[in-house]
């Protein structure tokens, strides 16, 4: 298989975040501030990424606004020729800072939504006053004219707010909304009993999205991430392992996906030690699950294997106990019964209490 150049890079600038969402995709073992890449190291990584073929850069975290050098990083990314997207909760952005980001050339903002009212949003984010602040930030985004995608993460606690989230996206002037039903990685794995939607909720969300796509055609583009524990086939994670995108952890480790660190037998290289191109093309972490050769049956003889690459490696490990197994979301997986039973049990656990993500040191 000829390895294509990557198109997108997610830079997790820091794991620090004022919020503590129970579904945070950061690893449960958070990276400490002291280990974070410096401004120069990040900018060098952006340049290497652009030379490698990356076109789109996502600045994420944690909360990227907790990095004091955010504006400088945006400027560095733009100078490298990258399309620069900021993925933020809004907390930590002031009006002044947003004008600076504007001047630095920031292309696009993706604003996360924990709930459609203060009560829900602040309970889920574990941060009082967060919603009010976010709405203020949304106002500045509109004023300055940044293109906006609203990013609504939905789960059993707030799925009923989906219709309102769609309205809010239109009110904020967003061109796009990402309706993402929570995926179970990182902290979300500890909260499956709190977050797992019911099968009915998952179906209802699909209906609402289908109807809104019709009604809002040409006004709001809706990207939908369905509830995968309730799906029949797995998602094509990351567009295929090591084919489309890469993640950089705050300390410079280069990951094939944000959850890859849960696969303990993989060894991740670091941009501090090696050129990014070598890591992309040659490292074991990227090559181990590239393509489809590693896949067992039923994937090997399945005609969908070029579509979904057998699904998610991290989920295969988490539920089937083997990172090279068929994603248990798939109806053909021998572990699919187990997956369905888990989904049922978790979604029925009404006494469940939230385990909040903790702060990065």
């Amino acid at each position, binding site marked *: 298989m000829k390895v294509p*150049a990557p*198109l997108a890079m997610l830079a997790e600038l820091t794991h620090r975040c004022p919020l503590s969402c129970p579904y945070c995709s950061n690893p449960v073992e958070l990276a400490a501030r002291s280990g974070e890449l410096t401004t120069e190291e990040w900018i060098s990584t952006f340049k290497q990424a652009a*030379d*490698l*073929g990356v*076109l*789109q850069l996502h600045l994420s975290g944690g909360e990227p606004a907790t990095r004091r050098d955010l504006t400088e990083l945006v400027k560095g990314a733009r100078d490298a*020729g990258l*399309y620069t*997207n900021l993925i933020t909760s809004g907390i930590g952005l002031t009006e002044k800072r947003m004008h600076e980001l504007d001047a630095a050339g920031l*292309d*696009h903002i*993706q604003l996360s939504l924990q709930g459609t009212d203060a009560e829900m949003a602040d309970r889920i984010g574990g941060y009082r006053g967060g919603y009010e602040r976010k709405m203020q930030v949304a106002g500045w985004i509109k004023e300055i*004219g*940044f*293109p906006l*995608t609203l990013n609504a993460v939905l789960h059993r606690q707030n799925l009923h707010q989906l219709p309102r989230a769609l309205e809010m996206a239109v009110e904020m002037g967003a*061109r*796009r909304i990402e309706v993402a039903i929570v995926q179970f990685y990182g902290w979300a794995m500890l909260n499956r009993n709190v977050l797992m939607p019911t099968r009915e909720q998952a179906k209802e969300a699909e209906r609402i999205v289908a109807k809104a796509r019709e009604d809002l*055609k*040409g*006004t*709001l*583009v809706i*990207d939908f991430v369905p509830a995968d524990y309730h799906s029949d086939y797995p998602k094509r994670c990351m567009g295929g392992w090591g084919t489309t995108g890469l993640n950089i952890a705050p300390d410079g480790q280069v990951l094939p996906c944000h959850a890859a660190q849960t696969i303990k037998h993989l060894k991740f290289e670091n941009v501090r030690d090696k050129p990014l191109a070598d890591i992309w093309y040659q490292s074991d972490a990227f090559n181990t699950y590239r393509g489809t050769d590693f896949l067992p049956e039923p994937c090997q003889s399945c005609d969908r294997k070029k579509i979904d690459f057998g699904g998610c490696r991290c989920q295969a490990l988490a539920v089937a106990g083997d990172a090279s197994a068929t994603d248990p979301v798939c109806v053909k997986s021998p572990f699919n019964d187990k997956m369905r039973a888990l989904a049922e049990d978790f979604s029925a656990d009404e006494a469940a209490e939230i385990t909040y993500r903790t702060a990065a040191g």
Partner: protein
Amino acid sequence: MIAPDAVPYLPRGVRLHRDHVRDRWVLLAPERTISLDVIGHAIITELDGSSGFAQIVDRLAAKYDAPADQIAGDVQQFLGQLAERRFLEVRA
């Protein structure tokens, strides 16, 4: 349908970019990269923010020595798809 005197333009957040690594032109948009062929590129470079649809079509027709009504159909379809995905705005 884009009216003859309406002005199509790329909104903020959508921009033309030379992809040197893959030797092609692309349109960069939020979470999307659209690969442009020669015709797509020619259409996009005509969007100057002040020319109306009919003017753009005329210029392309002259440049490629093709009938204007045929070009109009192609441009309408190409820009229509971009507009539906909110990669293009049209000022009346």
